[in-house]
């Protein structure tokens, strides 16, 4: 397994010499197809967590013939342990908007929307005036593209792309059936590119520096760098942009407090890696992928409480539309509580694990499907803590 050493990178938050107007001018001199080819070649994959190749997403949307197409920036950051998108929007908003404009030019869209969570409402004034400024710059450059803001209202599920479209259309944020995918049927049922905040900044930086600089970083399947949100039992919580492909053990050495017993990678819906497996995985698509959430737990923490928190979170945030997720989340939560109280035998955990496995197969969207990740990895590695 190829792994990379710990290396801080400064692409996302780099402000020195980053004139987005210059980047845009360069983009506008090239053809949309060339831009898309570069994005494919860069190997950039969605930084929200799902990891779909960004260039392909753009290519599929470009090949649709609809007159109306849309670019959406997914800023509904809600995964527990993630706070990078807010930080990016606060510190380098112009680079996010530029990524949207580049995508708009590439797929021939005239409108872009930023869907941002209601919890970040305090950003509204500043963000709106920066958007106005940016729209004006585009107008002056003769690019027919406009960005507008749309707000969420406290629903984690709206970070799921099709739920986000529903919410933007004024409906309950209930995920749609897929396929068709957003590249064909997205917002207003039109072809839509929906990218995470961080992904759009990388699109800007790839167009600033060229593909090679991006590809120099990372491993074979995980090109480039990524912004990590580090929290939990760490002496230095915060935002770090690191080269992809770091061994979990090296991450813990850098950020742990010397007593780390587990790292939850990818948020509540992510994977729990216990101390004995720190050397077995890299952070990246070949190992454990993540949208950036890295939560460290030391030996003073009860993994029962951790799992209980996650299950409570999913129970509350499940949209309730499909039965496996709505009922499954509740039953997993009730189940571990019953075992803890001694009302159910320890073997009941295996029944719950098979329920979680069914949820992975039968749930309609990523929320219900991913509950099995934390559930099985915590149960498998910390079974005695859950029972006693």
């Amino acid at each position, binding site marked *: 397994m190829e792994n990379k050493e710990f290396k801080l990178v400064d692409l996302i938050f780099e402000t020195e010499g980053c004139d987005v107007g210059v980047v845009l001018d360069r983009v506008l001199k090239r053809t949309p197809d060339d831009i898309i080819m570069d994005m494919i070649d860069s190997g950039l994959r969605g930084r929200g967590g799902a990891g779909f190749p960004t260039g392909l997403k753009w290519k599929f949307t470009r090949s649709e013939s609809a007159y109306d197409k849309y670019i959406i920036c997914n800023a509904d*950051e*809600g*995964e*527990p*342990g*993630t*706070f990078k*998108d*807010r930080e990016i929007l606060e510190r380098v908003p112009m680079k996010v908007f530029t990524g949207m404009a580049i995508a708009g030019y590439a797929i021939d869209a005239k409108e872009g929307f930023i869907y941002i*969570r*209601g*919890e*970040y*409402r*305090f950003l*509204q004034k500043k963000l709106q005036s920066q958007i106005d400024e940016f729209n004006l710059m585009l107008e002056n450059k003769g690019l027919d593209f406009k960005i507008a803001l*749309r*707000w*969420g*209202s*406290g*629903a*984690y599920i709206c970070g799921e792309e099709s739920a986000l479209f529903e*919410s*933007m*259309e*004024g*409906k*309950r*944020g*209930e995920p749609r059936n897929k396929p068709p995918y957003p590249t064909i049927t997205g917002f207003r049922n039109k072809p839509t590119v929906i990218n995470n905040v961080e992904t759009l900044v990388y699109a800007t930086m790839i167009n600033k520096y060229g593909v090679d600089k991006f590809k120099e970083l990372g491993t074979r399947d995980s090109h480039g760098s990524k912004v990590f*949100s*580090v*929290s*939990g*039992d760490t002496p230095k*919580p*915060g*935002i770090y942009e690191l080269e992809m492909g770091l061994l979990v053990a090296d991450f813990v050495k850098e950020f742990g407090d010397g007593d780390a017993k587990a790292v939850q990678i990818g948020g*509540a819906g992510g994977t729990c890696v216990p101390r004995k497996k720190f050397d077995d995985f890299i952070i990246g698509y070949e190992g454990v992928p993540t949208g950036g*959430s890295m*939560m460290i737990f030391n030996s003073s*923490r009860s993994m029962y*409480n*951790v799992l209980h*928190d*996650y299950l409570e*979170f999913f129970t*509350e*945030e499940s*949209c309730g539309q499909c039965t496996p997720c709505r009922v499954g989340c509740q039953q997993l939560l009730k189940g571990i509580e019953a075992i803890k109280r001694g009302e159910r035998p320890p073997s009941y955990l295996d029944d719950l694990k098979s329920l979680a496995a069914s949820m992975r197969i039968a749930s309609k969207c990523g929320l219900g499907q991913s509950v099995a990740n934390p559930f099985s990895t915590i149960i498998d590695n910390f079974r005695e803590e859950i029972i006693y």
Partner: protein
Amino acid sequence: MTDVKELIQAKVKSIGAKREALMPILQAIVEEKNYLDEEDMIQVAEALDLSTADVYGTATFYTFLDTVPRGKFVIRVCKTISCHMAGKDEIVDTLKDLLKVDLGETTPDKQFTLMQANCMGWCHKGPVMLVNDDIYTELTKDKVIKIIHDYMGS
């Protein structure tokens, strides 16, 4: 207080009398008075040519679109894992003591509503809370007492 009718009309003017205007309208009303009452939802339904049940069904999907009366200041303490580990229980207890209300309740003078909410995106600076749209991070017992007293005085 701005008239709800005016809020609706302003949004309809900028977005159109279509379903897409629903969230922005509901958000604008909540921003103004912190919750939606029946009369508001009936008016919104009429303006957008939707059934009232549809408006209610949409509003109740979203945690921040409250359909029961809330105080002037809605306090939401983050209860998700990082904030939990960082000591949000002490913050909630402090607020309960200070405001003499339980979770989900509003003070008799209709000034404060105390609630918990899921992850707010400040996991490196827990415990945190929102008071309406304003975020307060790295809370301690003393800090919370001061913040609330400032609101009480405002």
